[in-house]
């Protein structure tokens, strides 16, 4: 019963967050200056035709009605029509979502694996040179902009060695090998930074757990360090790592926008930046809302994951 209440509470928070976020995104794109009709027709256009276009787009109606229409459309999966191409936005974005999602998911998995290996190594060997070097390496990885890593990878592996293409994308369904071939460099450039961030968290989580009394007790009764850590430490580490993972998925999504630009991948990010350059505000609004939705869904799932990992939170008085 308490689990149901806990889940319901988090679901309610999720819905409210989503609503507030939709209002913010809508207001930023609609209530602010930069009239779409004026932008499309140019500064020299006569006011009458600007007014006509504004009426055609429905921009002359009150904000609250436009917001209602937009949200109503969102709930049925309709993002509206682009101001510029006059075509529906949803079908235009659908194939791009796969590109962005595959980039983010591949990077996340790879980063997680690397972070667990390096982080644990850095924690267990923190008093040795190799552990210190691992920490130092993650510190440097943290300071490298992902897009610069991408550019350097292109210089070495596309321009120099010619192992991988410098950009472009092949759909997974058409040619899985070609897809993988094109995804290696973008995924690795995103992973470098993400695994550096995660490594640091995994390291400090493990160091904290190593100092815990129950690990000391396990060691005292004869468990070796590594098995003791696996048996008694992993769950404690998991709570902290899941938190960071949630936060990092948001930054991965945003990082993907930049990486798509570096490698000319036709994902959500490149479409978003095109729309910003053309001031196609409804497209911007739709994509930003999609990305924010993704972040909020991830946060919601992270909250649920806490409940699964840490039984203490399932009770009413449980705190995190």
């Amino acid at each position, binding site marked *: 019963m308490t689990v149901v209440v806990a889940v319901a509470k988090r679901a309610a928070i999720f819905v409210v967050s989503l609503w507030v976020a939709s209002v913010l995104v809508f207001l930023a*794109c609609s209530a602010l200056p930069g009239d779409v009709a004026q932008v499309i027709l140019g500064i020299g256009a006569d006011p009458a035709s600007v007014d006509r276009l504004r009426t055609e787009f429905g921009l002359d109606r009150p904000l609250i009605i436009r917001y209602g229409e937009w949200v109503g459309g969102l709930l049925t999966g309709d993002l509206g029509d682009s101001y510029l191409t006059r075509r529906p936005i949803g079908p235009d974005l659908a194939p791009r979502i796969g590109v962005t999602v595959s980039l983010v998911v591949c990077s996340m998995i790879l980063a997680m694996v690397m972070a667990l290996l390096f982080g644990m190594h850095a924690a267990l060997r923190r008093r040795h040179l190799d552990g210190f070097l691992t920490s130092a390496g993650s510190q440097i990885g943290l300071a*490298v902009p992902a897009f*610069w890593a991408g*550019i*350097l990878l292109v210089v070495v592996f596309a321009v120099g060695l010619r192992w991988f293409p410098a950009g472009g994308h092949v759909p997974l369904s058409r040619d899985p090998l070609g897809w993988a071939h094109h995804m290696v460099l973008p995924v690795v450039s995103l992973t470098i930074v993400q695994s550096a961030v995660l490594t640091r968290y995994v390291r400090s989580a493990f160091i904290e757990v190593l100092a815990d009394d129950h690990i000391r007790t396990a060691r005292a009764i004869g468990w070796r360090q590594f098995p003791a850590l696996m048996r008694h430490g992993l769950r404690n580490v998991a709570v902290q790592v899941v938190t960071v993972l949630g936060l990092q998925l948001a930054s991965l*999504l945003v990082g993907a926008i930049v990486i798509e630009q570096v490698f000319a991948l036709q994902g959500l990010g490149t479409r978003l930046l095109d729309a910003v350059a053309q001031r196609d505000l409804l497209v911007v609004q739709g994509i930003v809302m999609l*990305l924010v939705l993704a972040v909020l869904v991830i946060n919601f799932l992270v909250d649920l994951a806490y409940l699964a990992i840490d039984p203490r939170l399932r009770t009413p008085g449980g705190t995190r």
Partner: protein
Amino acid sequence: MKARLSLAIGLILVGLVLVTALVSLVWTPYDPIRVDSAQVLQPPLHGPHLLGTDGFGIDVLSRIMVSAQICVQVGIIAVGIALVIGVPLGVFAGQVGGWGSELVMRVTDIWYAFPALLLAILFAAAFGSSTGTAMVAIGLASVPAFARIARAATLQVMSQDYVLAARACGTRPAAIAVRHVLPNIAPLVGVQASVSFGIAILAEAALSYLGLSAQPPTPTWGRMLADAQTYLFSNPVLALWPGLAVAAAVLGFNLLGDGLRDLLDPRLKEVR
């Protein structure tokens, strides 16, 4: 020992960025903006241009030096915005506790759903791209981190006996905040400021790479990298210097923050 090392390297790198920014205000080896078609794509280390010239014949070193100004400017304004909004929010939440605290936490949760880059893109679409929109967006996106740290630290201070004594004497909450809370949470907030400075530099680099921050001819490290991408096949070395500059600056602020944190947090020292 390691805290000292982090602190030392951090201070050196941060100092280097600040000094470069200041020096570039009065002196650069060459004009960082003027196009010189006779000097296009000079290689580095040969001839008069230490780091070579770019596709417009502009001295790369001069451009990197001037770019430090934007980096420092964006960092200071963005962190300033985050401090001014985030710290009072967090201190308020920590002092009132209960529903007020819960509300602030929920607000920061939603706030977190708008990372700096996304916010900056949204602002660029609405207001147009400029250093100003980038700085404000990065600053606003950094608010929740400050609010949370300030809240957690305030909660700790509020449970101290001297705060209890002050409250018993009838000291008003605002006075407690200024006299007892702020001085005690300042070190933690300072650490966060240093880390946020690094994050702001990274975000600005990405934004100017995407063309959503400072507009030409103002040089920035991100823009230089975007320009360098045109010459990846003929002059890949152009993509090296601006990236190194960003990485060094961010590394500096991160190490400074880490070093300060380790010096301040006795618990971490014990473990090590």
